[in-house]
């Protein structure tokens, strides 16, 4: 393994650990200054490395990010977004530890490891500008994966310094930097690059993943990274797709939640007998939590929207029914539909955002604001019966085709040894298709 691969390996390992440990809520930071220095080192080095791959001009002012850049020059746009992301602490105010400090928590040591790895990659800044195209694409994808993690890592760090901020310590500036709006652009652009540039293939041939199968092919070697961002990835995926084919459309679809739900419902219907357990779980989550969120919105908007209170009550009843579906156990012979799962997550995120928006509205909200807020929630509510019906029908088809089975228990100790019986003959059938 060469030094580039070794440092990148260390960086990815540390970032993965930080992503998981940060979610568990690490212990209070022993040396927050050192962590901030490490975070800034990662940010600055990533910015330099991606600038080299994207052939960004050196010593020039980074221009404002535009939608055109995101669509046609994603590699350069990524450099631009990272350039707009500020340091957590001003340059020179915190020092990065040279040696591993055993007194720090595992979370903080992972930050140090990430910083050391990115500093190790600094030696390649110049080399990256002359990298062969195929290698440049792989390097871009690997670094983009790390860059895409930054918003999550920064959020975890902001949560870690929040207790100090509440105690009156001087952490206001780092907190603001760690929750900087520039993270939104980074999320969008890194998502764009990751959608267009395929990940490296697994080292073993037995790794099967339909998700990877849908990835675009590598760009041709005639494309240099800077140009390839214009012609290669954009022509490889995404732009040629008819938007109406999509199961759901990203965050902006919240204004057309009903349309997105309709497409999602059609996708569930189209799965038919091939519906998998994972698909059912995804739809169930959406029905339960999406209904709860929409009900929250409609209850808030009820004074200004006739019928909203009734719709909210119906949605809460739906959520309770969907909650009971958790108890239905089944197995399926088919693989989950990746796009359906992603759409479930997106739609759930949108309903959550709506509920959050309702919670943010003040008591002085105008009727017009309430009506505007209620519109997508009502659109969601209108689609819920059709979605529940589509789920019911598809589950029945899957059970009839024996592609989905309900385990019959033969041992009280282990469900692993249970035999499979025909679901159509099981009382659980009614529960699972409720």
């Amino acid at each position, binding site marked *: 393994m060469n030094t580039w691969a070794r440092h990148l390996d260390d960086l*990815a390992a540390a970032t993965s650990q930080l992503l*998981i440990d*940060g979610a568990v*809520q690490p212990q209070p930071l022993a040396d927050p200054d050192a962590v901030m220095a490490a975070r800034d080192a990662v940010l600055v080095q990533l910015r330099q490395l991606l600038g080299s791959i994207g052939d960004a001009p050196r010593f020039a002012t980074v221009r404002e990010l535009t939608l055109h850049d995101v669509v046609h020059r994603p590699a350069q746009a990524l450099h631009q977004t990272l350039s707009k992301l500020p340091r957590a602490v001003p340059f020179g105010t915190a020092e990065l530890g040279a040696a591993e400090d055993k007194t720090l928590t595992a979370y903080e040591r992972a930050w140090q490891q990430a910083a050391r790895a990115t500093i190790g990659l600094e030696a390649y800044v110049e080399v990256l500008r002359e990298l062969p195209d195929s290698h440049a694409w792989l390097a871009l994808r690997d670094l983009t*994966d790390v860059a895409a993690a930054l918003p999550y890592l920064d959020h975890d760090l902001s949560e870690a310094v929040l207790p100090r901020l509440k105690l009156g310590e001087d952490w206001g500036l780092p907190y603001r930097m760690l929750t900087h709006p520039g993270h939104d652009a980074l999320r969008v652009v890194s998502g764009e690059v990751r959608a267009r540039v395929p990940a490296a293939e697994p080292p073993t041939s037995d790794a*099967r993943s339909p998700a990877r199968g849908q990835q675009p092919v590598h760009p041709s070697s005639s494309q240099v990274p800077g140009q390839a961002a214009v012609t290669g990835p954009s022509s490889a995926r995404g732009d040629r797709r008819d938007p109406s084919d999509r199961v759901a459309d990203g965050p902006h679809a919240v204004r057309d939640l009903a349309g997105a739900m309709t497409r999602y419902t059609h996708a569930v219907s189209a799965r038919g007998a091939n519906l998998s357990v*994972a698909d059912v779980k995804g739809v169930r989550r959406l029905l339960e939590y999406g209904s709860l969120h929409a009900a929250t919105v409609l209850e808030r908007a009820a004074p200004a929207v006739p019928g909203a209170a009734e719709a909210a009550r119906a949605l809460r009843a739906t959520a309770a029914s969907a909650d009971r579906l*958790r108890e239905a156990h089944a197995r399926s012979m088919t*693989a989950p539909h990746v796009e359906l799962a992603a759409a479930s997550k997106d739609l759930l995120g949108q309903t959550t955002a709506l509920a959050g928006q309702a919670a943010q509205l003040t008591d002085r909200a105008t009727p017009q604001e309430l009506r505007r807020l209620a519109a997508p929630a009502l659109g969601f509510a209108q689609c819920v019966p059709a979605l529940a019906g589509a789920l019911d029908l598809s589950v029945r088809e899957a059970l009839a085709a024996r592609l989905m089975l309900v385990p019959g228990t033969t041992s009280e100790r*282990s469900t692993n040894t249970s035999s499979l019986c025909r679901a159509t003959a099981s009382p659980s059938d009614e529960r699972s298709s409720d």
Partner: protein
Amino acid sequence: MPDIPFLPDTDDPTVPSADQRWPTDPQPTLAQDLSVLAWLETRREQLSSDCTDFICAALLEWSMLGELWPDPAEPSVGPDCDHLEALVQITERLVRHAVVAQPTARRFELARVGRELGTAIRCQRDPQALAESRWRELVGRQPWLAGPPAPVVLPDGRVL
């Protein structure tokens, strides 16, 4: 002087030599851990509803990698074990899987699964703190929460 193939740990005489140690139990595989997760996802009596939902979200992240939903299986220590502790141990093992996975993108896929599990752990330990944290993250993620965004009209007429 003849070579000495093995030097005992003279610093700590209580540590037995390698051939005197009991063999340790093999670590569960990733597939076994996922099966236990599928089992934990159904244990609503011991874990909170939100916690099991985050476990469900983790398994959905796993299925988004094109993998089948794992068959539920009890942990080897039995169904009466400390469910939260089982979840913590599985998450710790997932970290170890994630940091060595290849290629690099695979690590982040596993990290996404692990992040949901981490959230499930936190949810079980302190649901109130988690709710506030996730709300702050949501506000950060959705800047247009302050009000519905104005539509963006592209030059070709498309509206975003």
